[in-house]
């Protein structure tokens, strides 16, 4: 047997599983989106684009798209900014840098259900630490039912999401910073550059690939945050934290509108692909080399 043919056997089991339990389901999901299936009946009809038309008028779906974008922006901005500032300091090394990096990483290995429980407790209006601290600081008028308030709830969940993932972004930024040749930074300093100039002209451009990575990874994570949102609010109150993935779940498994939920899944896939593609174009365009 030629070596090339033998290698096909190495691909076979993985590809068979992948085709059966990944590719085929993805394609059938697209197919369901053109039907009126309720998930229970043995038969269903082909309805063309009706589900997609239905989505455009669906108030909860439109709210979910808006919430998902809000959630994405809040998470991406908070996560990127905080982790960058923390990493700039940590990359210099020094006492405790490794210990801090490890501490910040711990929340990233907790399950979203656990993170959801921790933050639901912190946000609890009467038993939680956040209102407790505000009361102790004499700021009782700032206390809130954080997860029960339609204006704050989505940002309250976003804060929990950021808390859980900043540690991983710190790691990515530290790696990016440590990959920058120190001679370049030293040379810029010798040329009389002040701290800000060195950062703006040398460090930041060289850090751009790492920043691009953090932003795109964080964006995708914000769309995948089903477990956390489901645990903390399950889309409530009054759909104020409904995001695309929780919408799909309840449209399918609470309302038995599998066709509609499948159309929402296709939309979800298209949106995530589009955002990934756009970020790839924008952020990788000005990639620098050294």
């Amino acid at each position: 047997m030629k070596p090339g043919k033998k290698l096909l056997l190495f691909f076979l089991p993985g590809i068979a599983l992948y085709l059966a339990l990944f590719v085929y389901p993805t394609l059938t999901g697209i197919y369901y989106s053109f039907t009126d299936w309720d998930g229970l009946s043995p038969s269903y009809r082909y309805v063309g684009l009706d589900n997609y038309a239905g989505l455009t008028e669906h108030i909860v779906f439109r709210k979910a798209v808006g919430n998902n974008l809000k959630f994405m922006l809040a998470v991406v901005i908070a996560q990127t900014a905080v982790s960058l500032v923390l990493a700039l300091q940590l990359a210099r090394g020094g006492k405790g840098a490794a210990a801090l990096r490890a501490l910040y990483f711990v929340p990233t290995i907790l399950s979203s259900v656990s993170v959801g429980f921790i933050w639901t407790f912190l946000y609890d209006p009467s038993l939680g630490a956040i209102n407790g601290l505000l009361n102790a600081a004499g700021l009782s008028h700032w206390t809130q039912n954080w997860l029960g308030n339609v204006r704050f709830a989505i940002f309250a969940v976003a804060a929990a999401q950021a808390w859980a993932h900043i540690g991983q972004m710190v790691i990515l930024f530290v790696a990016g910073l440590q990959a920058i040749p120190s001679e370049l930074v030293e040379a810029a300093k010798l040329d009389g550059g002040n701290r800000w100039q060195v950062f703006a002209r040398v460090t930041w451009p060289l850090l751009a690939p790492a920043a691009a990575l953090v932003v795109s990874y964080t964006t995708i994570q914000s769309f995948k945050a089903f477990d956390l949102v489901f645990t903390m609010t399950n889309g409530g109150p009054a759909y104020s934290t409904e995001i695309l993935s929780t919408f799909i779940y309840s449209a399918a498994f609470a309302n038995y509108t599998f066709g509609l939920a499948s159309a929402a899944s296709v939309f979800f896939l298209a949106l995530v692909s589009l955002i990934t593609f756009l970020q790839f174009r924008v952020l990788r365009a000005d990639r620098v080399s050294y």
Partner: protein
Amino acid sequence: MLLRWLGRLLHAAFALIVALPLLMIVFTSMKTTPEFYAHPLSLPSAWNFGRFRELFTQHPLGQYFVNSVFVTASSVLLELLLAGMIAYGIIRSGRKLGAGIFALFALGLMVPSQVNMIPIYVFVRKLGLSDSLPGLVLVTVSMLLPLGVFMLTGFMRTLPKELLEAGAIDGAGEWRLLIRVVFPLCAPYLASTAAFLSVIVWNDLLFPMLLLGGKDKMTLPLALLQFRGEYLTDYPTLMAGVVISVLPVVVLFLFLQRYFISGALAGALKG
């Protein structure tokens, strides 16, 4: 100087924001329920393991724990084997075939697993694999294949080519080369990949929730979610559940930090 102090202040603040909630889980789990409602935020008056005992006696928590260990260990091992074989095939086969197979899995990276919740639920039920832990393992492995192939191909590409060619000339078969040469050489990479994937599988809620229903078939995240329906704002009991579910991962992390961190780095590069 001022900047450096500001940086330190920020680190001190963020370290507290991370550490205090983590300590709060442990302290809260040690409180009795009346003690908690009287002083929700104080330190526990004594080391009280009553919540843990209650969870273990009133629920098959030991069984859930074993289920989680089974699903995580078998998914990750199977994933390493299948993705490792594919990655090896990719780096060993001709340019065109290798790139084609890689592209097939790279496409899968674009599909968030949430997109597939409906068809997976329907198809697994049709196959008669719902409410079965092995069924969940197969779905998990397949959902993670793009990520596994991506990570392991990236790692295996860094192996010196001459080494594999020398092995092939010695007449070692491809399979032997993979098992005896490539896997041992890749051991640290396999460990990083395993660490990264284990966290994902151990913590997953969505697929266990879709595919498992039976009372004794639950994994820990699913069981935790059920506890909330039962205990509501009885946070000491809920936090005891959190401690039980996070303890194994945190202990592993303390000992194998290096692999968790390099795995997180490599896993993120897929973006």
